[in-house]
């Protein structure tokens, strides 16, 4: 009976500060909440979504407390994004801001509360997607860094790196037609969508590579076989995150 109390009182991390509430527009260090945040990043076709799905399955089957979130998934700004894309109203600045508004909604309503509630949060793409893609569109790094300052810092950021040709081929073979913004047609790099897409992806890849050191990316080789990559990913997660804390409480433990 008393064990419920101890479970609540036990400090989830030695240095977790319970008094630090999220401040909109201020960076949130990962020790400000008890949960943990795992992020995958990489260009389209790098295999990151497949890998995060497999990681999620592994954790789900193990019964861990987790929440999965995707980039650009909230219904809040969907209509605006759709309209902007259809009518081609979006500029690099408004494209970036709309995605930031969408992310802020997810951050304030799901990611932060779940991290504060001691969940393991898995994110398919995170703010680095915006840093890479919007910088490739010409937005300034300083402005972008400020824009996403409210985002909690991930515990692990996996960066799936695949050579440009591999990633581009994976996408082009799987999709009948590239969309206007997806192909970076708004940048005026080429009249041909596949060509524009390649040039745009090359810029994005360059931006991602710049963040490997500054943002502590864990670089994984996207060309490795799926199961080998997954093994690496699981080993890294197990070594960096105290998974026991997210496991279901068994009677023996208590």
């Amino acid at each position, binding site marked *: 009976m008393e064990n419920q109390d101890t479970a609540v009182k036990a400090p989830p991390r030695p240095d977790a500060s319970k008094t630090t509430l999220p401040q909109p*527009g201020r960076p949130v260090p990962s020790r400000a909440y008890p949960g943990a945040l795992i992020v995958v990043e990489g260009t389209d076709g790098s295999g990151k979504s497949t890998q995060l799905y497999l990681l999620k399955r592994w954790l789900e089957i193990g019964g861990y407390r987790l929440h999965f979130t995707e980039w650009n998934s909230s219904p809040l700004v969907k209509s605006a994004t759709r309209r902007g894309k259809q009518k081609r109203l979006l500029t690099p600045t408004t494209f970036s801001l709309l995605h930031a508004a969408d992310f802020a909604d997810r951050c304030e309503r799901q990611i932060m509360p779940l991290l504060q509630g001691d969940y393991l949060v898995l994110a398919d793409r995170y703010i680095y997607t915006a840093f890479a893609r919007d910088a490739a569109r010409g937005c300034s790094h300083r402005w972008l860094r400020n824009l996403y300052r409210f985002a909690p810092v991930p515990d692990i950021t996996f960066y799936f790196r695949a050579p440009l040709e591999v990633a581009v081929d994976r996408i082009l073979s799987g999709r009948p037609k590239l969309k206007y913004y997806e192909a970076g047609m708004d940048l005026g790099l080429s009249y041909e969508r596949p060509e524009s897409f390649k040039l745009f992806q090359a810029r994005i890849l360059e931006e991602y590579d710049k963040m490997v050191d500054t943002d502590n990316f864990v670089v994984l080789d996207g060309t490795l076989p799926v199961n080998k990559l997954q093994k690496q990913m699981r080993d890294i997660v197990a070594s960096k995150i105290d998974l026991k804390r997210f496991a279901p409480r068994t009677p023996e433990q208590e």
Partner: protein
Amino acid sequence: MPDHEKDKLPQPVSSAAPEDGAKPAAGDSEASHTFFGESLVGLNPQELNGSLIVIEGMDGSGRSTQIALLQEWLESEGFSVQTSGLRRSNLVGRDIDELLAKNAVTRLTLALMYATDFFDQLEHRIVPALRSGAVVLADRFIFTLIARGVVRGINRDYLTGLYAMALRPHLTFWLNVRPETAFAREFKKAQAISYWEAGRDMSLSHDLYWSFVRYQTMIKRELESMAKKNAFIELDGEASVSAVNKQLRQRIGEQLGIRASKYTPSSALAHLWR
């Protein structure tokens, strides 16, 4: 992201297109436009010939009345006029209306939606008008948006950084009124005070009147703190419509080189003239 905390508030700088080697017009011509922090993607400010005039002030300060009159006066003087305001963008204007109506949005998301609305109008309405040499009358600008965010606890440097690519107005007028006066005027207009005008989301008071007065006082304090640095021209919004309008015409006339600034509203607008 360890460098986030080191991010400094961008200092106001005059700026030209960074890529094409054009030198910034460092205040050497009256037509030079500057940004608050950094330049808008793909814009060369030297292409802009028009004038950007901003009217700030709380609800009930007489902004829209004055803008209607100024537009008529400027058009009668032969100037092309474009207007802008909050929630008027094609991109997200209606979406914000919906979010406000449903009251299902967090403060940061709302602030970013307003920023999207602002930049959509800046890029698709204000900049094209300034390129063609028009006078842009802006019914509120980044100052109100920053003030609203700050009073809701959003970091001030964050908001200033967000609006770093806003153009600096040539003239910024601030129609200053007491919240009590604004309340009476707004109430008379609609026989009601809206949820957002009264800042009800901030739980300041269950009493509608006090909620309105407290909220608008907080916003007013924020505008006061921005007034000096941004060269606000403060006008007494409690003076008569014609007296306020005369002062506005005088300053705008100086800016645009209009000599005689005599003006009487047409019959269509005569009802505003009291």
